[in-house]
């Protein structure tokens, strides 16, 4: 007994004991579902009977118009959120960290609050704000501008205004805080030497801030790519369920949920998941390559 204890307590074995929960969790809750998911995408499951169907799910997916809509919506959403949620928070962060803004702490606290609300709550708030009745706030705003009421969530253009505003509302503050922490990591003496060289604020931003902020920018882009591609609940809550008019809110994960949970076609849904994973990995790889995080390293300085 004491021998076992001695082995368990030795410096050689202890790291294995510490890592054990992670190894188990990795096998049981990550590798196993990942492998089954990929296998299931080549199978159909009908009342417990599994049949191997080869790549037929994938060939069917290629011709599936709903899937095409879903992929297009997700990719479009990802691109738009990248355009909105990287430059704007970055500029806000630069502005808030510059000495000229007053009461900086207060603004940082307020801007993070939307991220505390759940998707249920934020989705409901935006659905009510953009509801089609004459009394909704956005329509009242349109009346003030001399326009008539708009059925906001019925068509793609206006519906996506609501969707993107919801996304910006929740994430601008979060991304700004990422950039703020990145800015705090920049050596202040660099700005001093830029000042001595007579650099203008714009030059300082382009030649000092932006290059040195790159790790943060890469991080924010990476998480935005993943979050954008796997968006589901925002549209689920905004359109009160998984069926939006003309599928304007259908995303890849929404389609996966529809096929897997609502109509119980697990094999087909898993194929959707595998395609999502491939798209995510490819985009992320391109992004990491383009920003120079992987591959050949550019010389800095």
């Amino acid at each position, binding site marked *: 007994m004491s021998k076992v204890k001695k082995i368990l307590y030795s410096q050689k074995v202890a790291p294995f004991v510490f890592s054990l929960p992670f190894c188990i969790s990795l096998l049981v809750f990550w590798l196993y579902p990942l492998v089954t998911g990929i296998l*299931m995408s080549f199978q159909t499951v009908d009342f417990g009977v599994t049949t191997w169907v080869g790549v037929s799910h994938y060939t069917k997916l290629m011709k599936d118009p709903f899937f095409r809509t879903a992929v297009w919506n997700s990719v479009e959403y990802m691109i738009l959120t990248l355009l909105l949620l990287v430059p704007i928070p970055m500029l806000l962060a630069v502005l808030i960290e510059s000495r000229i803004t007053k009461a900086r702490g207060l603004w940082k606290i307020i801007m993070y609050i939307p991220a505390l609300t759940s998707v249920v709550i934020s989705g409901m708030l935006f659905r009510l704000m953009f509801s089609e009745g004459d009394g909704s706030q956005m329509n009242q705003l349109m009346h003030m501008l001399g326009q008539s009421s708009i059925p906001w969530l019925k068509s793609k253009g206006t519906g996506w205004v609501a969707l993107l505003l919801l996304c910006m509302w929740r994430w601008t503050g979060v991304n700004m805080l990422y950039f703020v922490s990145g800015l705090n990591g920049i050596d202040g003496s660099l700005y001093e030497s830029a000042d001595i060289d007579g650099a203008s604020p714009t030059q300082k931003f382009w030649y000092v801030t932006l290059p040195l902020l790159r790790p943060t920018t890469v991080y924010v882009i990476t998480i935005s790519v993943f979050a954008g591609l796997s968006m589901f609940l925002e549209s689920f809550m905004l359109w009160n369920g998984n069926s939006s008019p003309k599928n304007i809110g259908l995303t890849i994960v929404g389609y996966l949920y529809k096929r897997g949970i609502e109509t119980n076609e697990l094999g087909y849904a898993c194929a959707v998941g595998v395609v999502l994973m491939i798209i995510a990995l490819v985009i992320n790889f391109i992004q990491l390559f383009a920003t120079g995080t992987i591959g050949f390293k550019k010389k800095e300085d």
Partner: protein
Amino acid sequence: MADNNTPTKQRTMAENHRVGSFCATALFVIVCGLIAFPLLAGLTASLRPAREIFQNGMSLNLKVSEWNLHNYAYLFTKFINPKTTDSVAIADSNKYFMWYKNSLVLTLTTVVLTLLVCYFVAYGMTMYKTKLGNFLFFMVIATMSVPFEILMLPLYQEVTTIGLINTNAGVFLPGLCAAGTIFFFRQYMQGLPKELLDAARVDGCTEYGISVKIMMPITKPAFASMAILCAMGSWNNMLWPMLVFRDTNKFTLQIGLNTLLTPYGNNYDLLIAGSMFGIIPILIIYLIFNRYLVAGMTSGAVKG
């Protein structure tokens, strides 16, 4: 050079600074106003008669004179489980508080267990120089780069087979070794002096004793920031719990609130009041531990 120091130049510079300062501050006032708007609108809507929300959505016209707490009163006193439910214990009890309690219990369990497990895992990876540690850290990064949604369906089947469906364990077990949390603890521990370990070993402390008695107190700030992020994630989590929980009496607050939206009519009065009251716990935690939160969420951004 002499030019720069003339009084007029200094005055214009000071003036420019004041104008810039005013503009920048005004911008943030506007941005924060826009950010506060939906929440304030929700709050005022929760104080108004239910029928009005249903007909008009949330109106810009505040009608302060009509404000009352009827929606809250109804939610807290009349929104109860029917007498005929399966479980005697929950019959006649308040439905909303039941969801609230479920959420609190689930969040508390998730936070405590996740932090402890992730701490020890990160400790094993960081404090000993082993090849296993490096490999496992690589796996942590790998798990971070696969979206959860892909694992969702097979995981759901797996959890059903194990018999964890409809249980709290089914919700928190798959996420217990949270990659982000391990990553953060590792980052934090890498900055700590390892000489402490050797000193403790000389004093006769066991490997496990060191991890609990020596290192845990030093890592307290890391625990604080991860606790808030984990609590937020768990309190607001919806997709996975929605799959795991079947019985209405097991529902968390978020799923419960979602059930108020039905194809047969939406109970916006209860939903808005319930939502506004549901933000409170997480808002309190946020306001108290705000400074730790910033440290926690930016950990990944430092190294990229």
